């Protein structure tokens, strides 16, 4: 067993175990943290197959940004753990049934799966003289540029949609204007008065 195989079993084992703990742990915050552990181990698996660029992007995007927001929301939610557990047995048969149907469909689809003629040869061997960031760039911005643009458009629409749904301008709220604050001068803010003694203002 080589060192790479050892690391494969380490990463794969921890990933599967933590994926199980995501649904098994009682505390939702622990679930999210196990999810993050699963992501990190998936990144480790990517490194083992030589896709270090994808691995780093997985960590930066999913672990560094998406999971942080996820954790944020879960931490702020006031979850009643007892209520969450109630009705677990009641819903269990339905869940098991859906799971079995899904499994049967997967078996049916992949059991009879064969690669079409010439498909296996169509996957170009990765050139070894360039790094995989360069390889991805060469394919992504040439052959798949329209898909790339379409994905970007979808994300933009989703972002604008989220902003439109949540942005509310409440009336009667005093808002700060930074340009106005910065434009304040000494003359506008201060009034130097010579107070005659014993008189007051």
């Amino acid at each position, binding site marked *: 067993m080589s060192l790479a195989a050892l690391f494969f079993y380490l990463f794969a084992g921890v990933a599967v175990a933590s994926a199980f703990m995501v649904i098994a742990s009682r505390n939702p915050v622990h679930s999210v*943290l196990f999810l993050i552990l699963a992501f990190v181990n998936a990144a480790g698996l990517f490194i083992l197959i030589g896709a270090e660029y994808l691995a*780093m992007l997985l*960590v930066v995007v999913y672990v560094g*940004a998406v999971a*942080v927001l996820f954790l944020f929301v879960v*931490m702020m939610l006031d979850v009643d753990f007892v209520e969450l557990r109630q009705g677990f047995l009641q819903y269990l048969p339905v869940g098991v049934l859906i799971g079995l149907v899904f499994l049967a469909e997967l078996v049916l689809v992949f059991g009879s799966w064969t690669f079409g003629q010439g498909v296996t040869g169509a996957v170009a061997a990765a050139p070894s003289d360039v*790094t995989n960031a360069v390889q991805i760039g060469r394919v992504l911005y040439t052959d798949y540029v329209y898909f790339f643009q379409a994905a970007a458009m979808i994300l933009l629409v989703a972002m604008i949609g989220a902003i439109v749904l949540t942005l509310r301008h409440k009336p009667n709220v005093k808002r700060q204007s*930074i340009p106005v604050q910065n434009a304040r001068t000494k003359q506008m803010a201060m009034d130097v008065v010579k107070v005659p003694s014993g008189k007051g203002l």
Partner: protein
Amino acid sequence: MTETVTTTWFDTLIHVLIIVAQSLGLLVGLLIIVAYVLLADRKIWAAVQLRRGPNVVGPFGLFQSFADLIKFVLKEPVVPDGSNKGLFLLAPFVTCLLALAAWAVIPISDGWMVADINVGVLYIFAISSLGIYGVIMAGWASNSKYPFLSALRAAAQMVSYEVSIGFVIVTVLMCAGSLNLSAIVEAQNGPLGMFQWYWLPLFPMFVIFFISALAETNRPPFDLGEAESELVAGFMVEYGSTPYMMFMLGEYVAIMTMCALTAILFMGGWLPPFPIAPFTWVPGIVWFLLKVLLVFFMFAMVKAMVPRYRYDQLMRLGWKVFLPISLVMVVVVASVLHFTGLAPGAGG
């Protein structure tokens, strides 16, 4: 057959031992430097305020950090009763471990790094974006008001400034044409010396990177996460003794990482300021250390001189000032490189 297997095992073992030795050497050097950087931070802060700073332990207070270390280790760690104990103790380990892990790829001289990986910049970026988890876990696991508020603040702040740091790094990458840290340093090598390093052509990005690095490491004036006048000590309120020390260690190692990254991306890493005789005699690691310490000196001076930002000002600076500027600069740099034909080939 058995002989070849044993030799491969032996080779692997030797290989692993060499890596372990390199890592240990780097860590020991780094931790000693961090001990003195901590002292330098306090001394510079004191000097700006016309105080003496720590001057009792050893000559000029030179052993102050080690005295602090012994004090923290000998104290009793207190775990609050209502806290989530596992996560409470895991958080400082995560902070410390991630901060130290980033140094695996940093080239401290020509070819002197533990791991020469192709995606070095992305690795550091990924590791530093994971640094949030230590803060969030500490804040949540403490099960206390101030740490929780602090964790939310710090997390939002670090996510915000990571965006502009990302775009700054993208402009440097476009100029250098590689994600490898050594290749980025080599791309700055030229007859003009220090005027060919990226701080001059990319000066606006250099400024944005420096300020974002301050915010990313929760340094003053952006230390909203541990603003003592509002949140006592932020996410570290419930911590004491060794776990607290690990937070401080992680924080200062992360600051050193950011200083090193600034030196590599914008100040030519281990390159001498001018490629002529007296400068080239000095070994590369000396130049690298000098640059890192120069950046740290700027960090310390900012801490000493600039008052703390208000939280809404901080968010405005990140999202409404730095993000548009860096986004526009990415387009400008890309256009200039493309139309002047200066863009590096897609080889490395």
